[in-house]
Structures are given as C-alpha cells and as structure tokens.
C-alpha cells in the first residue's frame, strides 16, 4: 500500500459526478480549489434554515465540506492550525447533504453504517486527512474567509482556498471502507486477553 507516493491531483469542487464515482477507497489525493468548513453546529443550523425555507449559505453540488474548527491565524497568516475533526458527529446530518448533491466530506474516523449506505451508489466520497496534523494541513490553506454563522466562532462556515491538500478516500460509491481494508492484514486478535 503505497498510495501516498502516487497521490493524484484533483480539483474541487469536483468537475463532474463521474470524477467522484471514479474515486476508490484507499486513493490518495491532493485536493486543490475551494471547499467549505462546517462542524456539528453549522450542519444543524443549515438544516434548520432549510426547514424554514431559507437557502443554504454554501453551494453543495459536487462541493466538499471540511469538518474543521481552526485555531485563529497569527497576523499575516491565512489560518492557524487546521486538521480534521471526528466525522461521526456529523453522521446525523450527512445523508441529507448527500441527497442534495454534496460531492464529498473530509474528516477523520469511522462513519456510521447509515452514512456508508447513503454513500453507496451516489457521487460522494468520504475522505480522511491526518488527524492532529493541524499545523501541516493549515499550510495547504491559502485563503480563509468566514461566509456564514460568524457567531459560531471557530465553528463558523469558512470558504477555504486550498492547494495540494492531502487526503485518503475512506468510503466510496461502491460501499468500500478503507479503514476495514487497511487494518485487516494487521489484526492479530479479536479483542483482548
């Protein structure tokens, strides 16, 4: 498994549904383009707004949401430390965003079975960035501007311009889960003593 040496450059928002459908669990990608940040609070607020008949503050068609709450930038920096947060907290909201045509999400950690099922057959990819590598990942973010829910502070929705942002595809349209695939060969125990 030397995916990382063969990382593919991909533009986001994804150029077509086919580009997303062609992604496979385990693919290492270097993403460049524009993506939006949102965590639990922002997801909840977006869906509550929709229920009231309001428009979403971000485009979703083939777009990518990054689950991150960055540290404040020092003067002269675009953003501070900006690694992924744990994705399962967004599980209750993700299927609805997939329905609306969202192209992908970046976080870390396992997704619920319902989310993996919601991804199957759709043009959506769940991708993981290296959790805790916030200083390094922040460097791939060239511009950051708050575009909605400023009162949420670190959890506000930001528009990020990124360059060669490294991720690994975890859950793909075929229903594969790369964590399962990657761990299996190294498992020596069923769980304890």
């Amino acid at each position: 498994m030397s995916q990382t040496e063969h990382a593919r450059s991909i533009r986001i928002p994804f150029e077509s549904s086919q580009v997303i459908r062609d992604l496979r669990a385990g693919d290492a990608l270097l993403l460049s383009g524009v993506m939006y940040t949102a965590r639990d609070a922002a997801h909840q607020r977006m869906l509550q707004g929709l229920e009231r008949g309001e428009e979403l503050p971000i485009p979703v068609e083939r777009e990518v949401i990054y689950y991150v709450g960055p540290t404040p930038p020092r003067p002269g920096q675009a953003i501070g430390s900006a690694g992924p947060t744990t994705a399962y907290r967004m599980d209750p909201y993700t299927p609805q965003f997939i329905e609306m045509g969202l192209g992908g999400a970046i976080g870390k950690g396992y997704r619920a079975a319902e989310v993996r099922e919601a991804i199957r057959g759709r043009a959506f990819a769940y991708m993981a960035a290296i959790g805790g590598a916030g200083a390094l990942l922040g460097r791939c973010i060239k511009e950051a501007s708050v575009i909605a829910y400023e009162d949420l502070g670190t959890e506000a929705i930001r528009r990020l311009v990124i360059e060669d942002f490294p991720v690994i595809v975890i859950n793909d349209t075929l229903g594969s889960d790369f964590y399962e695939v990657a761990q299996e060969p190294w498992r020596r125990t069923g769980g304890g003593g």
Partner: protein
Amino acid sequence: MREVHVDAIASAISEMCQSAGVALTDDMLQALEKAYRDEQSPLGRHAIRILLDNARLATATGVPYCQDCGVAIVFARVGQDCHVVGGALSEAINEGVRCGFAAGYMRASMLQSPLDRRNTGDNTPAVIHYDVVPGDRLELAITLKGGGSENMSRQAMLKPADGVEGVKRFVVETVANAGPNACPPLVPGIGLGGTFDKSTYLAKKAIMRPIGEFNPDPAIAELEKELLVLCNETGVGPQGLGGIVTCLWTPIEVYPCHVTALPVAVNIQCHANRRREVIL
C-alpha cells in the same frame, strides 16, 4: 509558611499552555520516532512521518500542533505548608489559561453549558484536580486534552469474577473501538480500582506519566507490557490506516477498591499528548 503569589501561578500556567500547544514533550517525540522505526505498514509509517513533520513545523512556526488545543486539565499538588497569596488559586489557574490561550493564538473550545453550548471564548474554565501533600511547594502539572480522544474513553464496573482477563478485554476493546476516531497512535491511560469516579481520575492521572515510565508495582508493570502488546495486535495502526503501532504506551494507575467491585476506566490520549509541569 512559604508564600506563593497568584501572579506567579497565572504566569506559569500561561507559559505552560503556550509551550504545550506547539511542542510535544521529548518523551512523546522519542516515542513517535520509535513508532516510525517499528511500524511495518507503509501507510502507517507515512502517517507517523507526517506527525513528526507536523511536530517540527508547529514548534518552528508557533502554530498549534493540533487545532483542538484541548481542555486545560490541571493537577495541582498543594503543599500543606504553602500559602497562596493575592487571590484564589483556582482563579489564578483560569487566568493563566485565559492569557496563555490568547497569547498562543490557540482555539477556545470550552462551552458555558453542555446544553446551551455557548463558547466561553477564552477556553476557561480549566478542569482542576487538587491534592494536598506534605511540604511547602506548589506543583502544577497541565495537559491540553483533545476532545476527539476524550470522547472515545470508557469506564466499566466489572465483576470481580471478570478478573484480569476482563480488564484486558475491556482495555483492548476500548482501544479498538476508538480506532481512527481518537487519532492513534494512542496513550490509553488506565485506572484500575477505587470507585466509579476514582477509576476515571486514575485513568487521567495515568496519561500524565512520561512515556517509558512503568508503574512501580512489578505486577502492574507486567500488565502494562502485556496490554501494550495486545493493543498493538488490534491492527488499527497509526491513524487507523493499519499497522502494529496503535498505542505508544499503556500506563496503569491503581487504587484499593470495594470487595464487590472491579472498576476500570480507560482515558484515551491521542498523539497530541501535550503535558507540562512546574514546581513553584
């Protein structure tokens, strides 16, 4: 009676927050370097390489190692002959956190209330554990505890019949379930014995111990060694991408317990193991 002024306490806490936010301790860096040498999975090795690069970059640029700068957990060992002057000790600690997080451009993650979820804006309050000890010194140990790993922590009131095998099973299951959610390689702090609350306190105390330092009780040290092997057989590996280094260390703290009980707690610590300590 020796006096310590609250200003000295606030400034020590502030400095420790800023320094811990951008630099892992040496024992932790060495553990990651060893993990890089030991790991056999190429993807796992790659993940550790990135973490080492991230550590170097954070220290060089002053950008926090992780965006989750954590809850400030403080263990204060107050000498019974030490007199804190100029104000309240807890307030001094919180003032230190407030200043340190602002000066270090660190993220405020603490909420006023778990239900209304409004951010306090300055990462206070800290979670403070006090212990009164002999002597006239004030020892302050701090860790910046990330939420992702904290969320994967668990406690169980096992039956005495479950015995050491039950303890091992519970620890390994907790580590396996935590998987990539908790940002491995991990340091699961293990609290064994006491009561329901004491076991979780012990687990937190365990993660304060430097990597490589065994429990002084040889039998518990043996269990620590065995648990490290078992945890690393889960296959989770660095970042959950598969491999043989899921945990860097498995420290256990022990306390006597009730005849009916076998409490065990596992407080998961991620690789952003950011500790500092000072004696005033």
